[in-house]
């Protein structure tokens, strides 16, 4: 096998030129091409699931069920939805015209941006690579995918499968790290879709600004979970556990990051969590095969540092065991760590769950609002008024009441952030829209011109114009009939 060549600026330029030629030639515009590519993606999901599961186990120690469900099944559904709806999505949308533009008809046409770049993340390397690519292809773009180098087996498999199945004149994978990404970002793209950290999100947007390239940034944040005492505690706790440790061991953008509850209720929450954690993962969670490991030693050390910080390490109420060699940290619960600790200052992205207690639950709103806007905010309660207030006043990418994370499986809801957690959204038709330029088209008739439009200007014309704006029916007739 030939040694991997370094992918530099020249390669990136040639790549974009090639893809632009394909796009200009119309390769990606037709319905048939888009459908064929989507069908090929479906074949990848159907025929290569064991390899995908194996790659994810290599890269992340991801349990088969998580790989199968949260990556492959979600993708399969996403592809099927696109196949089913594509004709609808591609159809122009009629727009209403008004008296000022009469006679006319108007529509909005969805048009691909052109050649787009998708930069993916390491925690759900298949899902976060292919799901945006589905959107890009559905919308008729040529697309370059750069998977994350921190999940190398997945990256290699993606490159191999996509080259094998998809039309490489318009769809390519570039593997690599900072050098390759930098080379890619110097090029002019018609759209960039990035999933990752807020820090790199800034770099991406700054690079995009040079070319006025629109971006979708799917970032992260500290997604809070507010737990009201008026809830079904067992279900609440099970869902939190499944949403945290059951989704890549807390390494997910919408992972429940920390819990907010009352001083009174916290002990009950902790007890319930301990009990359910044992049910799920046994007495020795470090031995459980049902959780992903920590992705690499850099992240292990990062999480370790959070746990070891003074005034944090003594707040551990459950777990805390670490095994650097096997990149494992036990499900760990902490109680009332300082608000300015490391663990409360950055997105945890790991199996540590701080619980912060308040005198009353209302205070949780202020705590959340004093922090950067997260990708998700969760609330568990039966209290209708609390639900309404939460949904109305807590700003986050998305709000989920009485569950965790499931909203990302719902194609009818836009999935995206706000503020530090990102900009733009996707999933379902929102993916198609994210990769489309909505072109306004107005069809006017050459009949019925009105002198009021043209110089020389006069008071009379002004009166007519005002009437038009005020929709004075009598004066309008005069205007429409071309009298002045």
């Amino acid at each position, binding site marked *: 096998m030939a040694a991997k060549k370094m992918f530099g600026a020249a390669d990136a330029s040639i790549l974009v030129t090639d893809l632009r030629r394909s796009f200009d030639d119309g390769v990606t515009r037709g319905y048939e091409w888009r459908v064929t590519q989507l069908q090929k993606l479906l074949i990848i999901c159907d025929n290569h699931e064991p390899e995908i599961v194996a790659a994810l186990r290599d890269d992340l120690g991801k349990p088969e069920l998580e790989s199968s469900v949260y990556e492959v099944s979600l993708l399969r559904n996403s592809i099927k939805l696109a196949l089913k709806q594509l004709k609808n999505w591609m159809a122009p949308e009629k727009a209403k015209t*008004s008296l000022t533009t009469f006679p006319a008809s108007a529509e909005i046409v969805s048009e691909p941006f052109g050649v787009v770049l998708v930069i993916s993340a390491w925690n759900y390397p298949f899902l976060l690579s292919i799901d945006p690519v589905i959107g890009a292809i559905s919308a008729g773009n040529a697309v370059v995918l750069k998977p994350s180098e921190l999940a190398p087996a997945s990256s290699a498999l993606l490159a191999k499968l996509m080259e094998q199945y998809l039309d490489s004149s318009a769809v390519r994978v570039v593997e690599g790290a900072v050098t390759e990404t930098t080379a890619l970002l110097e090029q002019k793209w018609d759209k960039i879709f990035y999933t990752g950290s807020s820090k790199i999100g800034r770099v991406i947007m700054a690079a995009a600004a040079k070319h006025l390239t629109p971006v979708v940034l799917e970032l992260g944040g500290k997604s809070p979970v507010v737990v009201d005492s008026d809830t079904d505690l067992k279900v609440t706790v099970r869902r939190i556990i499944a949403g945290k440790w059951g989704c890549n061991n807390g390494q997910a953008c919408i992972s429940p990051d920390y819990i907010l509850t009352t001083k009174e209720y916290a002990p009950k929450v902790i007890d319930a969590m301990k009990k359910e954690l044992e049910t799920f993962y046994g007495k020795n969670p470090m031995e459980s095969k049902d959780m992903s490991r920590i992705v690499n030693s850099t992240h292990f050390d990062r999480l370790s540092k959070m746990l070891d910080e003074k005034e944090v390490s003594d707040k551990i109420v459950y777990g805390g065991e670490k095994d650097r060699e096997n990149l494992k940290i036990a499900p760990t619960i902490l109680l009332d760590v300082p608000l300015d600790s490391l663990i409360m200052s950055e997105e945890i992205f790991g199996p540590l769950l701080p619980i912060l207690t308040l005198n009353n639950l209302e205070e949780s709103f202020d705590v959340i609002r004093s922090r950067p806007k997260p990708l998700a905010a969760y609330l568990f309660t039966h209290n209708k008024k609390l639900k309404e207030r939460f949904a109305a006043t807590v700003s986050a990418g998305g709000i989920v009441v009485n569950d965790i994370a499931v909203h990302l499986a719902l194609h009818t809801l836009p999935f995206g952030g706000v503020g530090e957690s990102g900009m733009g959204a996707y999933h379902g038709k929102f993916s198609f829209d994210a990769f489309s330029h909505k072109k*306004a088209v107005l069809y006017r008739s050459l009949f019925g011109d009105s002198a009021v439009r043209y110089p020389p200007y006069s008071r009379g014309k002004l009166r007519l114009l005002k009437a038009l704006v005020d929709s004075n029916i009598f004066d309008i007739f005069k205007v429409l009939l071309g009298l002045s």
Partner: protein
Amino acid sequence: MEGMKETVEESLREMRETFASGRTRSLKWRKAQIGAIYEMVKDNEDKICSALFQDLGKHSTEAFRDELGVVLRSATVAINSLDKWAVPKHSNLPLLFYPAKGKVISEPYGTVLVLSSWNFPISLSLDPLIGAIAAGNTVLLKSSELSPNASAFLAKTIPAYLDTKAIKVIEGGPDVATILLQHQWDKIFFTGSPKIGRIIMAAAAQHLTPVTLELGGKCPTIVDHHTISKNIKSVVKRIAGGKWGSCSGQACISVDYVLIEKSYASSLIDMLKPTIKSFFGENPKESGCLSKIATKQHVQRLSRLLNDPRVQASIVHGGSIDEEKLYVEPTILLDPPLDSEIMNEEIFGPILPIITVRDIQESIGIIKTKPKPLAIYAFTNDENLKTRILSETSSGSVTFNDVMIQYMCDALPFGGVGESGIGRYHGKYSFDCFSHEKAIMEGSLGMDLDARYPPWNNFKLTFIRLAFREAYFKLILLMLGLKR
């Protein structure tokens, strides 16, 4: 500048405090503010027209048609539609998630910055302002220093009509803009040139601030003489109006250049000349109906474009310049070289190049060599040509058989693509432009499925697989133990 920095920071602090208080969330407040904008314009028509006349020599009819009328209408539409726009959109969720509910609510971003332009200083300030307020934001407006009288009017009058703790105006040029851009905003709306658009976006990237950039480009006008010869008079009038009838060609959607078959060029010119005369009389400088050029620097720029000897040689009408009076004569060029400066930057002035082609189909190729414009205009009744234009070119919008009027159609999104911009507004799009679409999902604590939780086993895997495929019958079989 220190004083300015403090002013900005104090303004930001106050606006953020106001936003946090929740006052701007009330639809009643928003409608009242927008109503106040309406009143402000109505009460001060004469003052506004006078300011526009002083800044740009704009005739009051033009001022009303392009600025006051636009704002009045925009305010009316917003007030009448706001209740509808603010209604949450309910989403259908798959049966599997029953009885979960999903919806999307539009939430204000928070404190937004509107940077306006000098050519339509009233409408390009107040129209985005209406959108920002309709969506429930607090807003800081920076008007352009190049239209000082309009800017002064806004700075003085807005505080007299609107809630000064929520809506603020700042005057100034690039130095003020620089200070503003150093701070964090929740959204930035900019109207201006692509060059400055890049600077704005790069600054926004530092804070992950989403942007809408309404930029410009060379809006081509295709004249397919074959199919519209019967209505050529209307066509010529519309083109002339689209070049000289609105701020003397200094509009982002002005007709920039015309494309026509060689054999018809001279008859077009022969019809344009008397049309210009009918608009502006023998001496356009004295007509009072032709707007001035913004500043001496802008006149010098246009002068430079014309000074190219090859361009000089192509002048078939006009060409005279009076820098003192900020006057450039309505000028027609016939086939200036395609590589001349005037054919490679947005003209933004009263000079009309006519580019001839052998076959009108070639005009598409020429358009594609240039950056994507804000608008493409085409006078044709040839359905094939229309289809080719729509599918082979890209632009913010396409208008058939008219010019500029797409601006008035508020069911159509107004915005660019590529070099001509990012994002869109007008009508409901203005409301959406300044809103974060927040997904809200509510699950039920009642129905809990064991299969959602570890420890994993084959049964749970099969269950979840079937659930994802929405294979409900097979699911039931599985649960009844009748499926392996």
